[in-house]
């Protein structure tokens, strides 16, 4: 362990704490694992500070334990850790956007969502987007939900070749971290006007009633919008 090694490891500790303090951790991982990351950040900073102090004040203490078969030369590990930590400290991670939601091809299939809990049926407007999609997965008959009130938030996706007054409202669902994020979405019909007035990736809150419509030749649940309000992107873009 020389000073540069300690600096590189310490920088990673600082990076983990920075993600926590700036709230960017929510863009990267599921909130269940915040304590692990925060703890690791604190532990790393503490360990590095302690080792720095030992190096400075007690140079006689053992400081090397060379591994017999390093896969990477020492300098590489140090360089990789330090450079990625610096990039991480500079760049703000962005949540995934509508283009990625479209490319994943899962927006229209909805095969991966498993129900974890159900909201009471008498307050349908309290269901989030993912609650609706999970419900549909279990009981897909669109007529069962005709006329139910709905209030969902999400970002706008424009799938190619959809009618002029229709867009998709979508969210990403995360179980561990952004690496396993997959999109869920629902078609929204505007009563009149052009769906393109809301550019892709705009965050909206939509109030309306559930109805049915043709989506790619299939009869499906479509949200008939009554009131569309642009909102600020939430600090935590994912649903769980």
């Amino acid at each position, binding site marked *: *362990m020389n000073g540069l*090694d*300690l600096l*590189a*490891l310490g920088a*990673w500790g600082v990076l*983990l704490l920075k*993600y926590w303090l700036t709230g960017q951790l929510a*863009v*990267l*991982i599921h909130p269940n*694992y915040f304590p*692990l*990351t925060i*703890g*690791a950040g604190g*532990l*790393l900073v503490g*360990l590095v500070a*302690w*080792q720095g102090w*030992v190096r400075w004040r007690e140079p*006689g*203490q*053992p*400081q*090397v*334990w*060379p*591994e*017999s*078969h*390093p*896969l*990477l030369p*020492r300098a*590489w*590990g*140090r*360089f*990789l*850790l330090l450079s990625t930590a610096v990039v*991480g400290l500079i*760049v703000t*991670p*962005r*949540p*995934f956007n509508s*283009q*990625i939601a479209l*490319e*994943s091809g899962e927006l229209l299939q909805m095969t*991966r969502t498993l129900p974890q809990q159900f909201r009471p049926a008498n307050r349908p407007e309290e269901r989030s987007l993912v609650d609706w999609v999970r419900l549909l997965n279990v009981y897909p008959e669109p007529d069962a939900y005709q006329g139910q009130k709905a209030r969902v938030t999400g970002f706008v996706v424009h799938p190619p070749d959809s009618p002029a007054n229709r867009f998709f409202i979508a969210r990403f669902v995360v*179980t*561990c*971290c*952004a*690496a*396993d994020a*997959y999109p869920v979405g629902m078609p929204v019909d505007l009563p009149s006007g052009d769906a393109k007035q809301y550019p892709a990736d705009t965050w909206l809150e939509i109030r309306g009633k559930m109805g049915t419509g043709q989506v790619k030749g299939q009869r499906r649940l479509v949200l008939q919008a009554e009131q569309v309000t642009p909102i600020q992107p939430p600090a935590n873009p994912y649903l769980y």
Partner: protein
Amino acid sequence: MTALQQGLTLFFSLLVEAIPFLLLGVLFSSVLLLWVEPEQLLKILPRHPLGGAIAGAVLGCLLPVCECGNVPVARRLLTQGMPASVAVGFLLGAPTINPIVLWSTWVAFRDQPVMVWGRVGLTLLVAVVVGWVFSVQQDLRPFLQPAVAQMMPKPMAQTVREPVLSGVPTGNFFALAGGKTLPLETTGWNGARLLSRRGQWQLVWVTALTELRELGGVLILGTAVAAAIQVLTPREVILGLGQGPVTSVMAMLVLGTVVSICSTVDAFFALSFAGSFTAGALLAFLVFGPMVDLKGISLLLTVFRPRAVLYLFLLAGLLTFVLTLAMNLYL
């Protein structure tokens, strides 16, 4: 631009999720390195080939070391007359069958518990079968590197003795005051016992941070590969490869060999392929990756002769392939 941002988010989310587990793993293994004496376990291990293979594979629960830590331990145990079935079972099973690896796999695949059970089950099966096959060879010495074989007692003289390491230079040194060093093999096998309590803890911290630097570098390289494949490869290519029951398993076996991420965190690497690859393929990566990879081969060659490493590699790879392919086709 979108692709770059997506790649960076993917890259950092994998690292932020994985680094706490890596830190936990290196701290755990450093503490154990100094205080647990695997030699004592030898006295209670079963001698029967099958029982020994099972015991070896489960030994990882008591000595949680990932694949980078377990080859030196296996070498030490072999020089003391550990039966072949135990040694091979330990080499293949221990990196996966241990608490931290199972925890991180569960975190990554919370909505697919079959990945966790499948990982444990298949790893145990492969490790035990290969260990059993190797036990047919009563005298392991023709398979071993000459330096290790010399240290080994004859197969019948199965007494546990105080290890002598001087014939196998470990390349490990104690740093003493004034820039002097003391080779580990001249201190008896566990030289750390000579240190004061304060010095022992200092060694724990230094070992942990040194391992973290090394494994962290490998983790960053592997994560960059995962993020780059996700972002740069056209979706149709990934899906075409990842949805075929045979091609997906082949691709993941190759990836598991090339990408040498520590088993503690390789579940997160596999996770980034969860949407596009078959479950059997991900399982093949999780089972075979910790057993054989580029780093592991260079380590294994310090113990076994190339021919034996090839047998190990082929047997474990074929078993994993057949089992995960069967899972893809029949489950």
